[in-house]
């Protein structure tokens, strides 16, 4: 590496960026100017709106028989501007806007009930209901205390449990916590947006302009050129980060967020910035990689957009409440850094995970930066092809298959979901036979395969049945064990378990209908789609392992449920491997149906069996035997 050359290229890129004043303004200073506007503006408007709602007069009426309640709470209601109308009111008065809330009394057991009627689609009505509710609660609590007193229960036994909540966090920590939510996401965003301007300028625009060719005939190593450009991208993103850290920090310190001013420690900000450097290098490497593939600036922009959206997802980690920085999460690219920055800003950060986040980000950046040296491959860059050709060369069939699969998913979401909500049984059948089955043909067509070759359902042979039967325990074991294993990281909430049990309950439908609904139909339709059209379509220009992996992940995602993603994907991988091995779709159809039937009728039993090593050994033996049945892969391939 010739450092002089790298420096020369870097300086030219930097000068070029600095002279593009409008781009500079848009990517560097505009966001920095926005925070004060956004924060102070929002705070100001919100306060004004809340104040106006708090001080607005609400009109409350009482229903028939609610005289006693009226007497009790009228005084309490008057603490805020409130007009209590005399007379008796009906719900229709609410609809016609004569009152904002109506209080009725209803004789319920064990105690009479005060019902507050309101309309949530009106701000004032909701406000009135809230005020009435508070008054009623105060009145009720007072009444209960009086009753306890008359019973001679003194002092109130609940007093020992009454509490006053005190925030033990120092003001710095509160400011840091607020900043720690916002800053990581902002940093990821500005790093990408400023970095992408620089990256597109350094690679795509340079190629479009024809100066890249000139550079490549100069006596400078292409890797030095790429390194200089990479450094310019990194410098641009870090410069944007600094301005944004300063602006956001100052806004929060001056009380832009939520009125009170927060103290923000400068050393914490500096620490956050240091943590950002390796991730900024990682992002700069990604951006360089992407924009070096584009032939024009505009094409490059189209590539950068999905990348920045994808990077935002891990960047959200610090913004969403409740995600702790654990050593495992610290290893997630971008996400680990975001969490570590949040912890550093809050102060008292756990040392090990923060160090891990910094170290892993450095490793990722180093791995990526090693590749940038190879980005300026003249053979590729100078090939005279239309822009689409370069991109479309690779994996044409796979990409068509995936496109059609995405369309299938959308159809299931937009049509299947509402159908199943209206009628669970009919909707399920309609989804499977009306969407999934036709879409299997659609996907096969998109991948360019004739249906016979995609589906391979010609001859059902005894070996197919045998193999499926031998694999049923293994399939149950795989999905059951994974469900159990993931419980540590991904515990299933009670409500979801109940919902699942209700859906597949045999109390409301007959066993034969359940078999048709939950075993036979998914077995047929989903196998035609996933192990038929999708797997074979991907297999056209992908190696078997990749085709199996992608189709299984899609199968996992198709259940639209995070807790089923991994177990179903593993099941999908088993089915896909079996299909490729057998050269027929039949074993997968039978195994899928068999597995679902097992879960349907013996789900409880399987979860006990999973603890029995003998069952697991038997499953493994069955799986081994099943795959041995098709010793020569593709024996009966059409």
């Amino acid at each position, binding site marked *: 590496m010739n450092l*002089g*050359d790298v420096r*020369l290229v870097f300086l*030219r890129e930097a*000068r*070029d960026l600095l*002279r*593009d004043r409008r781009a500079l303004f848009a990517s560097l200073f505009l966001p920095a100017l926005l925070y004060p506007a956004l924060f102070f503006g929002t705070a100001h408007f919100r306060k004004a709106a809340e104040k106006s709602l708090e001080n607005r007069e609400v009109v409350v009426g009482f229903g028939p028989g609610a005289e006693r309640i009226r007497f009790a709470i009228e005084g309490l209601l008057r603490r805020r501007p409130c007009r209590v109308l005399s007379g008796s009111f009906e719900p229709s008065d609410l609809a016609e806007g004569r009152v904002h809330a109506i209080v009725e009394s209803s004789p319920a057991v064990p105690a009479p009930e005060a019902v507050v009627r309101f309309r949530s689609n009106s701000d004032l009505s909701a406000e009135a209901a809230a005020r009435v509710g508070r008054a009623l609660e105060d009145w009720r609590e007072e009444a209960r205390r009086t009753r306890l007193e008359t019973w001679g229960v003194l002092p109130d036994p609940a007093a020992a449990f009454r509490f006053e909540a005190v925030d033990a966090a120092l003001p710095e920590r509160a400011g840091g916590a607020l900043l720690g939510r916002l800053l990581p996401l902002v940093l990821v965003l500005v790093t990408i947006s400023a970095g992408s301007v620089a990256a597109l300028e350094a690679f795509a625009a340079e190629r479009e*302009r*024809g*100066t890249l*060719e*000139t*550079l*490549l*005939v*100069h*006596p*400078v*190593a292409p890797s030095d050129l790429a390194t200089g450009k990479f450094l310019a991208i990194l410098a641009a993103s870090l410069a944007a980060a600094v301005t944004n850290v300063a602006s956001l920090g100052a806004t929060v310190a001056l009380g832009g967020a939520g009125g009170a001013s927060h103290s923000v420690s400068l050393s914490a900000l500096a620490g956050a910035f240091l943590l950002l450097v390796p991730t900024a290098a990682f992002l700069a490497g990604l951006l360089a990689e992407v924009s070096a593939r584009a032939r024009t600036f505009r094409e490059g922009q189209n590539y950068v957009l999905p990348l920045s959206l994808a990077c935002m997802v891990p960047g959200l980690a610090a913004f969403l409440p409740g995600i702790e920085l654990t050593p495992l999460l610290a290893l997630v690219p971008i996400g680990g850094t975001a969490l570590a920055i949040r912890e550093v800003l809050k102060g008292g950060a756990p040392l090990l995970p923060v160090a891990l986040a910094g170290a892993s980000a450095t490793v990722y950046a180093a791995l990526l930066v090693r590749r940038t040296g190879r980005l300026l491959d*003249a*053979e590729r860059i*100078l*090939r005279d092809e239309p822009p689409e*050709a370069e991109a*479309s*060369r690779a994996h044409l069939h796979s990409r068509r298959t995936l496109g059609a699969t995405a369309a299938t998913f959308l159809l299931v979401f937009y049509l299947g979901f509402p159908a199943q909500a209206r009628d669970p049984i009919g909707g399920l059948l309609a989804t499977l036979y009306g969407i999934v089955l036709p879409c299997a043909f659609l996907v096969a067509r998109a991948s360019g395969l004739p249906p016979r070759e995609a589906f391979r359902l010609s001859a059902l042979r005894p070996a197919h049945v045998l193999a499926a039967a031998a694999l049923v325990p293994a399939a149950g074991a795989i999905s059951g064990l994974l469900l159990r294993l993931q419980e540590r990281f991904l515990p299933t909430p009670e409500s979801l378990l109940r919902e699942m049990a209700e859906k597949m309950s045999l109390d409301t439908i007959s066993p034969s209908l359940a078999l048709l609904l939950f075993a036979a139909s998914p077995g047929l339709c989903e196998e035609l789609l996933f192990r038929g059209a999708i797997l074979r379509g991907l297999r056209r220009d992908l190696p078997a392992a990749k085709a199996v992996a992608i189709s299984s992940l899609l199968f996992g995602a198709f259940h639209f449920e995070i807790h089923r993603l991994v177990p179903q994907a593993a099941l999908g991988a088993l089915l896909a491997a079996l299909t490729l091995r057998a050269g027929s779709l039949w074993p997968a159809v039978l195994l899928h149906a068999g597995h679902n039937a097992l879960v349907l009728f013996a789900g409880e039993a399987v979860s006990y069996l999973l603890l029995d090593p003998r069952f697991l050994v038997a499953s493994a033996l069955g799986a081994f035997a099943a795959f041995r049945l098709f010793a020569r892969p593709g024996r009966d391939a059409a």
Partner: protein
Amino acid sequence: MSEDGAAIRVEGLVKVYADPRRGEVRALDGVSFACARGEVLGLLGPNGAGKTTTLRILSTVLLPTEGAASVAGHDCVEEPLAVRRSIGFLSANTGLYPRLTARETLDFFGRLHHLPEDRLGPRIETLLEAFDLREIADRRCEKLSTGQRQRVSLARTVVHAPPVLILDEPTTGLDILGASAAILFLQSQRAEGCAILFSTHVMAEAEKLCDRIGILHRGRILAIGTLEELRTRTGRRYLEEIFPALLSSP
């Protein structure tokens, strides 16, 4: 310089591209020629004949599939950096950095060639004078006219005083004044002893400027020689007639 004094030597050059739709494409199919110091060799041929590919292999940005090429005695595959140091390369679609001034452009590329500080300054002044850029030396390239930009590009090409010039259709897109300036420039460089290889499809230019002309078609050299030699071989007078005659002859 190689033993026979040729500044550019190309022997049996073959370049094969893998094309997704057309399969293998032989852009060059055994091209050989040489160009001596102080000589202007023109490569003439229709679009897709392989002119640009040949020039790019010589400027080391593409690797040949077979055959050998050397510039100023340096092998294009073995010593790419040495080759790049001895060539000035310019093509029709070469651009300039819009936000650098003419002077900064020359400075940047001069430094990329590792010109020592004490030589770079005077060299830039000489070039600004020679290409009549003094007035606009500190204006950004984005604000220059097409002709001015072309002059900056030409100055950029010779900033390191290369012994060999490789020019890919240097006059395409230029107006009459610009094109004649470019031709005057080439003549002056030849007078200084430069070996010049350039490709064109403007026959008149080739007739006027070239010491020898190579006719390239579908990756092969159909004929190479002085204009006189080509005339004798085909019995036609003008290149416009010589060219189709060569294409039709077996």
